[in-house]
């Protein structure tokens, strides 16, 4: 199974790769929402979680999230926002658009791995 990192920073995508490998997942990458949708089209059946930045050129994270949740083939794939945005309005907007989790940059590798596990539904959620 695979994780998809949609972020315009190659350094952030490298960090995501580290977390993916620790969890035994392959990482797919995209620089922005447009490329993200191209990668989705070819790989959606294998993608377990999408790790999504907000501020990207061409198509930003929110637009990408809306596109994913608007597509019946993709909408079941959990999306975790990974962004510098901390404002409540941004968090609520992302949740309303269907984000499954929201992690703020900067983060430690421990936080990242933990949050990915929880987004995968493999962590200890409330009520589990």
């Amino acid at each position, binding site marked *: 199974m695979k994780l998809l990192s949609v972020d315009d*920073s*190659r*350094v*952030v995508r*490298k*960090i995501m790769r*580290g977390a993916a490998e620790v969890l035994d997942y392959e990482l797919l990458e995209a620089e922005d929402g447009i490329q993200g949708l191209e990668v989705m089209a070819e790989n959606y059946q294998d993608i377990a979680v999408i790790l999504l930045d907000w*501020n990207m*050129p061409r198509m930003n994270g929110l637009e990408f999230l809306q596109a994913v949740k608007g597509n019946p083939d993709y909408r079941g794939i959990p999306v975790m926002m990974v962004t*510098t*945005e*901390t*404002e409540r309005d941004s968090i609520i907007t992302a949740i309303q658009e269907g984000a499954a989790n929201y992690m703020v*940059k*900067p*983060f*430690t590798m421990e936080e990242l791995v933990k949050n990915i596990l929880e987004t995968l539904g493999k962590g200890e959620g409330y009520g589990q």
Partner: protein
Amino acid sequence: MASDKFAMNENLETMSRCLDNSVREVLGTMAGFELMQIALSDAERSSHPAEITGAMLLRGPRDAMLSISTKKITAEVIVAYMTGLLPDEVDTDDLYDGVSELVNLVAGRTKAQLSGHNLHFELSPPLTIVGDGHFIIHKNQVAKISLKYGSGEIELFIEMFFIS
């Protein structure tokens, strides 16, 4: 004008504190470095040639440019620790992107903290400036926050130039 200047001074202190928190938190979290603030000399306060700079514009009650400047070798080490690569595995694209992401993270954290003090800013995309011995001059500089950090061989200059 006097009250505006007063508010500016008060806000400068708040901004300086938030910037300081952000720098130490970002470098601590993403690269594992515990940075200490070091005193700047007068010469350094006026200009300090660098080899690589990450910069971003902040638009808000005052417009400002935030920059993080350092030597290339320092930036390579920081990016290496951010990504888990060895310093000699950090290629040019990683380096330029890493410096850009670093200023993005610091600006993002600073913006978030300032928002709690009712100072709201929007951020431009980050950019990286590369060139041995470069420095940044603002013709219309109104005020400036200058901070210097060190930890062992690491030295970073952080500046926020207010241009309105």
